[in-house]
């Protein structure tokens, strides 16, 4: 394959010495013969926003940053926490102080040791108003002492609750006992930053010629809107277990072009366009892959004052939710193995027990009948048809779902739903200001815990676009912030949501990829899809 990767020649020359070492790598199954060319090439939709760990805000950029930098903790193939730069951590009794012990053999790519001071610098940098990172809120969410005040400009960044006890001991003080704090240290914003390099080069420090990083890879090439390349970091502490020599991210905006280029052998991984999975999995059963993701897809009612009167009636909301044939959406529209959604939180979320919902067990004909009855009860029928406008942002897939939904409602309930698509920024603005009747929504978890989804429906949440408000939900969510056993709380929230139906859950996302058969180690069970090139390997064909 890879006819055109001229670059592969270089990799070929240097590969012999790695092959022997690679057999020792813990994650490669016994007896696997590794390929000579250990280059992994994948498609990204868009140019990444940045490779500065404290600044990066998009998925594409975070993938690169996870290879270039290493934080306190990493995730394994199942999404469990494993040591990164820290070998482990200890929490105090009150769970408000965390002490991380750092490994002494961790090095920056220029040979300098990685110390606790690098983390202190990075974390203070992340909250510094002068850097103005869009991810400042993440540090605030981590409940680090004084973070909120620093961000608001009321305190100096130096007052952040982080200290380097010694070179290899990093201590964090929290303002509240956050149960999932350690999980949050796998996020790019918390990765260390090389102070000396940043001070020397300023904003240009992330350019390939300047950048110094502590992860398994270093950035060697960046051609904006075309490709970025990262290559093995010889200084990385676990370098001997790293197999992939070079990872290339190719920017391909059009998913159909990406698939064509994948089929032509230019890529090892690409997304499968909606609707093509069944055909591809028949043709390429070893390559077409689908697995659950931590994302939901829903339509939200505007229940605020600016919303239509009809949506204030719970029967109307329920009727519309019932009449959605989710099996058609997932099996005939998306066709990528997405699970149909009856709850807001995906079932794949760790520690979340979906409640047993009556209507989830019914067949669609029963649901449709219920929907008709509910709508009739609400006073809508053939002589008084329900009419509303549903908005979604411009995209082929969203359009398909919206058309299918509106046609379901039309044919089953006689409901007239007008479609309106808006360009992304306009959509966000209108939705955020409650200038809509019904709007598409989707959310991907920031961390593997139900609150990352359910917090959206908290009355005070900035993301609560439908302005749904329920005192009991708020109470339960507040309780979950400090509780040891959160699972029953989240289940109860979902039960309330099911009774009140402020949003229509449609489906939960699946990662639907073509993964080349010679690519090994892809963490399909990591629902957050936090993958690291160092855990991958290419198998000889």
């Amino acid at each position: 394959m890879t006819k055109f990767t001229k670059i592969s020649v270089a990799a070929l020359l240097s590969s012999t010495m790695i092959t022997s070492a690679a057999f020792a790598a813990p994650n490669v199954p016994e007896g696997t013969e590794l390929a000579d060319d250990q280059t992994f090439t994948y498609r990204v939709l868009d140019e990444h926003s940045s490779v500065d760990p404290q600044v990066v805000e998009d998925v594409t950029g975070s993938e690169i940053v996870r290879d270039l930098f290493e934080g306190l903790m990493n995730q394994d193939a199942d999404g469990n926490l494993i040591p990164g730069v820290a070998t482990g951590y200890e929490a105090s009794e009150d769970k408000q102080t965390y002490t991380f012990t750092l490994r002494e053999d961790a090095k920056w790519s220029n040979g300098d040791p990685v110390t606790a001071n690098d983390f202190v610098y990075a974390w203070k940098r992340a909250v510094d108003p002068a850097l103005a990172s869009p991810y400042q809120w993440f540090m605030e969410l981590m409940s680090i002492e004084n973070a909120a005040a620093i961000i608001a400009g009321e305190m100096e960044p130096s007052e952040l609750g982080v200290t380097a006890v010694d070179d290899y001991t990093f201590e964090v003080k929290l303002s509240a006992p956050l149960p999932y704090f350690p999980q949050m240290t796998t996020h790019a914003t918390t990765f260390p930053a090389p102070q000396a390099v940043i001070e020397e080069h300023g904003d240009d420090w992330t350019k390939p010629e300047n950048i110094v990083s502590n992860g398994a890879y270093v950035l060697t090439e960046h051609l904006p809107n075309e490709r970025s390349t990262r290559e093995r970091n010889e200084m990385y502490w676990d370098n001997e277990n790293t197999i992939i020599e070079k990872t290339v991210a190719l920017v391909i905006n059009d998913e159909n072009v990406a698939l064509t280029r994948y089929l032509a052998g230019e890529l090892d991984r690409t997304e499968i366009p909606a609707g093509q999975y069944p055909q591809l999995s028949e043709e390429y059963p070893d390559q077409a892959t689908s697995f659950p993701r931590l994302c939901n897809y829903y339509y939200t009612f505007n229940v605020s004052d600016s919303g239509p009167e009809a949506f204030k009636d719970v029967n109307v909301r329920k009727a519309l939710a019932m009449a959605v044939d989710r099996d058609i959406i997932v099996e005939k529209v998306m066709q990528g193995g997405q699970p149909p959604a009856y709850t807001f939180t995906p079932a794949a979320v760790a520690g979340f027990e979906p409640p047993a919902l009556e209507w989830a067990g019914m067949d669609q004909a029963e649901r449709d009948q219920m929907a008709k009855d509910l709508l009739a009860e609400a006073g809508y029928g053939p002589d008084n048809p329900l009419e509303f406008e549903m908005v979604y942002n411009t995209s082929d897939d969203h359009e398909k779902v919206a058309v299918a939904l509106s046609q379901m409602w039309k044919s089953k309930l006689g409901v007239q739903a007008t479609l309106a698509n808006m360009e992304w920024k306009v959509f966000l603005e209108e939705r955020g200001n409650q200038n809509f009747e019904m709007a598409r929504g989707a959310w991907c978890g920031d961390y593997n815990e139900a609150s990352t989804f359910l917090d959206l429906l908290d009355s005070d949440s900035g993301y609560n676009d439908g302005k749904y408000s329920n005192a009991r939900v708020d109470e339960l969510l507040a309780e979950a912030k400090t509780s040891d056993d959160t699972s029953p709380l989240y289940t109860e929230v979902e039960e309330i949501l099911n009774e009140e139906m402020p949003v229509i859950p449609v489906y939960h996302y699946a990662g639907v990829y073509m993964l080349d058969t010679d690519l090994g180690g892809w963490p399909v069970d990591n629902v957050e899809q936090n993958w690291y090139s160092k855990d991958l390997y290419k198998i000889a064909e």
Partner: protein
Amino acid sequence: MVFGSSQKAAQLADDVTDVIPVKGRSLLHDAYIRFTHNKAAMASVVVLGLIILFVLIGPLFAQWSNEEIDWDRMGNIATEGMPSIANGHFFGLDELGRDLYSRVIQATRTSLMVGLIGAATALIIGTTYGLVAGYVGGRVDSAMMRFVDILLAIPLTLVIILFLVIAGRSFFMLFVSLGAVGWLTMSRIVRAQTLSLKTREFIEAARAAGVSEVTIMIRHILPNLIGVVIVYASLLVPEMILTESFISFLGLGISEPYTSLGKLIAEGAGTMAYGTTWQLLYPLFFYVAIIITMFFIGDGLRDALDPKDR
């Protein structure tokens, strides 16, 4: 971008400018005869007429509406969605299981309307603007034309994108934004024509007879502009359709459930590798047919109105 041929149009219009002012019916009549003797143009008129006829009476034969989903076949488009007389989907199904026959008819109607209304908008604005600038002349003229020059320097794609992004999408905005960028060249052509016309004897005569300036503009200059205007407008129609299809490609075109040929083609082109080529070929056929016939009609009009021996 696709307004590229406007320069050519300007050139063509220059040719027409050589026409002697209309002296009654004979010249237009001659032009009509010349046009009817142009085989390619006449064939194009027939083809275009058939397309319009199809758009008008086609819906009578449709067994599905343009937004209805065929629930039984959706999800298996590649194997069950091909064109078939038996199941009433004469042109097959689109990606979502909607009847392509009805959608193509609706899209063709939209694209023709975009072409005609877009061109008409450009024509009205451009003619008025150019006529006023050229007739009033002097400082007003140079200020007005400087303004056009500035607008011409702004990349058209940007203007259209910004228009649609800012003002939101609707049929109306689409026509406005297309018209807004199409009138510039039109106004330049009309102005040049007006400048040469206003020194002619018959205008002088009218003025000496005490006819008001506005009346001169409308009664005496405007009729003499018809030749140029028709030629340029006929060239604008395909340009408008091409531009609309580009806008649709960017995802800024018309909203569902309505569609345009450009949008259908963009969808069909995206999935052409997956064994559903009919989704590309039917809309493409109508699209290419309209564009080509409009080109030939435009050329035919130009030749007909240009008495130069060729």
